[in-house]
């Protein structure tokens, strides 16, 4: 199948994900819409708990159900909506057309199977290979992500590898079937600073080689600036601003984006362990204010903000604010 390069790989429309908790239903992702273009890296930034991981998981329909569910919306991969897709067809796409790298490299791999075993599982599932044929392919993939002595590592168990090495294994697994779209959920957050830089460098090189679209979830605006062509800023389950990275960074329009940028240290090499702090607290998802969810923390807040919720002005480039900068 030839893919049209002018059409987006992924079209997400009005995606809403809810969780039934003991205290009530929370809307972790609220009417989110965005496109991902072929070969593009789209950044997804926001504070902890704003719904980045849930958004990423929803792309593969990996939300734990129950308590979660995709309440509404559509997720079109190359024109095919994944939300109503039968489980079997979805399983076929997972790991092949759509791959995901998880936030927690220490627990994401199965502790009682070797690296080689787990990689071969994926290769045999989606590519027409026997286990014997898959092994050298797995070793090759490990070499690609910069793992020394890859053939020997195949017989290691996850606990014998460092966090950085495990994340590289995850990346290798995610790339093993040439995905159309890769969702990388904070691929480097759990790693130490030096390893982070190495893994990211590798990651960028691989993206160029594999020519895939990437959704890069991160709280590190420096990483976004270096890696992403476009970015979405999320707050409390919704997108508050979207646009080309250069634009977004030089002329932020949402006060939240501006706040994030203002607190970035001047030195580019200095990676942040956490997202810069903006005064005030994120509202409780169970008790969201009626108007703008950023109102309590916003320096530009006016009366209208508390009464009326602002909507995103445009999908590819837009802002959800009554009084943008």
């Amino acid at each position, binding site marked *: 199948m030839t893919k049209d390069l002018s059409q987006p790989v992924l079209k997400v429309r009005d995606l809403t994900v809810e969780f039934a908790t003991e205290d009530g239903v929370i809307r972790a992702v609220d009417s989110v819409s965005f496109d991902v273009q072929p070969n593009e890296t789209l950044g997804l930034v926001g504070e902890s708990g704003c719904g980045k991981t849930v958004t990423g998981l929803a792309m*593969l329909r*990996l939300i*734990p159900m*129950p308590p979660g569910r995709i309440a509404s919306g559509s997720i079109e991969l190359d024109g095919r909506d994944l939300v109503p897709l039968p*489980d079997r067809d979805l*399983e*076929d*796409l*997972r*790991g*092949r057309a759509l*791959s*995901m790298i*998880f936030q*927690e490299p220490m*627990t*994401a*791999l*199965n*502790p*009682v*199977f070797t690296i080689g075993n787990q990689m071969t*599982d*994926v290769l045999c*599932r*989606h590519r027409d290979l026997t286990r014997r044929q898959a092994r050298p392919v797995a070793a090759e993939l490990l070499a690609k992500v910069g793992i020394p002595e890859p053939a020997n590592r195949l017989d290691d*168990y996850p*606990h014998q590898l460092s966090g950085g090495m495990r994340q590289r294994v*995850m990346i290798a*697994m995610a790339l093993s079937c040439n995905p159309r779209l890769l969702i990388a959920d904070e691929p480097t957050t759990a790693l130490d600073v030096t390893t982070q830089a190495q893994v990211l460098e590798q990651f960028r090189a691989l993206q160029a080689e594999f020519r895939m679209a990437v959704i890069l979830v991160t709280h590190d605006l420096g990483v976004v600036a270096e890696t992403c062509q476009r970015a979405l800023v999320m707050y409390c389950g919704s997108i508050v601003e979207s646009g080309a990275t250069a634009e977004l960074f030089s002329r932020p329009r949402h006060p939240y984006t501006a706040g994030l940028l203002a607190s970035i240290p001047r030195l580019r090499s200095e990676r942040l362990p956490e997202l810069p702090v903006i005064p005030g607290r994120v509202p409780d998802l169970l008790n969201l204010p009626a108007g703008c969810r950023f109102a309590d923390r916003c320096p530009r807040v006016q009366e209208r903000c508390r009464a009326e919720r602002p909507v995103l002005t445009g999908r590819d480039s837009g802002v959800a604010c009554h009084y943008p900068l």
Partner: protein
Amino acid sequence: MEILQYALRKLLAGLPLILGVTLVSFALMVYFGPDMTYQLLGKNPTPEQILEVRQQLGYDQPFLQRYLVFLGEIVTFDFGVASTGEPVATLLAKTIPVSLILILPGFILGHVVGLLLALAAAYWRGSWPDKLIMAVAVIGMSVSFLIVIIGFQIVLSSSDGLDLFPVRGWNASSLGNYLSYVTVPTLATMFVALGYDTRFYRSVIVEEMTRDHVRTSRAFGLPESRILLRNILKNCLIPFITRVMFSIPQVAIGGALLIESYFGIPGIGKATYEAIVTGDQPVLKAVVSLTAILFVLVVVLNDILYRVVDPRVTLK
């Protein structure tokens, strides 16, 4: 070979444990067990007679000395003579095999069927097969062992019921006889253990299902059934093994004792029961020490199996 060395090391490490367990059980027997002196004497014994009998029984020796003699008996497997006049070793050789072939089928089937039901419940968790299985498990758990036995006897063995099997007794002279006598006790043990085992297995499996690595497997398109039967199950082996291993002493003692005395089956459980009633000390000593050793063996074997199934357990 590494694993053999490890096993050997574990066994050696188990020795002090055997010493400890036997010491405690011996102390309990000495201080709380029946005093044989007066059973062996006639009415109104003289102080001299009492002294003599106590000497024969070794009661006049210091505790430590008596314990050492006891250890000697364990090592040589010579526990003296039972009150029936039969050597204890002979009694054990006669009764233990009976108990083994009596208990083993129910034990194995109980765990296997429990695991299968748990897998089915976990696979369909939240929907009706799960609810049905768990409801039956709760009912099974709430019925007492004795009622289960009587129930099975009435339904399967009595002339008012199906009258398929003998009510009591034991005959293992041929396979046919063995099967007819072992069926009802097996069904009863299975039934009683099944509820607990199913619930246990299900809870371990369902807990493992929430782990990150399961999400990873799903994210890579592995089919749900394969994830459950391979990726999840292998991670559950440690709690499973622990469960099975540690139910061995319990079944060997409690289960055998109840079933054998109820069905009149001449196994080690019934022999123990009779020894308790008559205060037959040589038999009790043998049973207690063998139980202690069995317990330690279970602990050691458990450790070794851990190493076999989980690569994270080191060989140190």
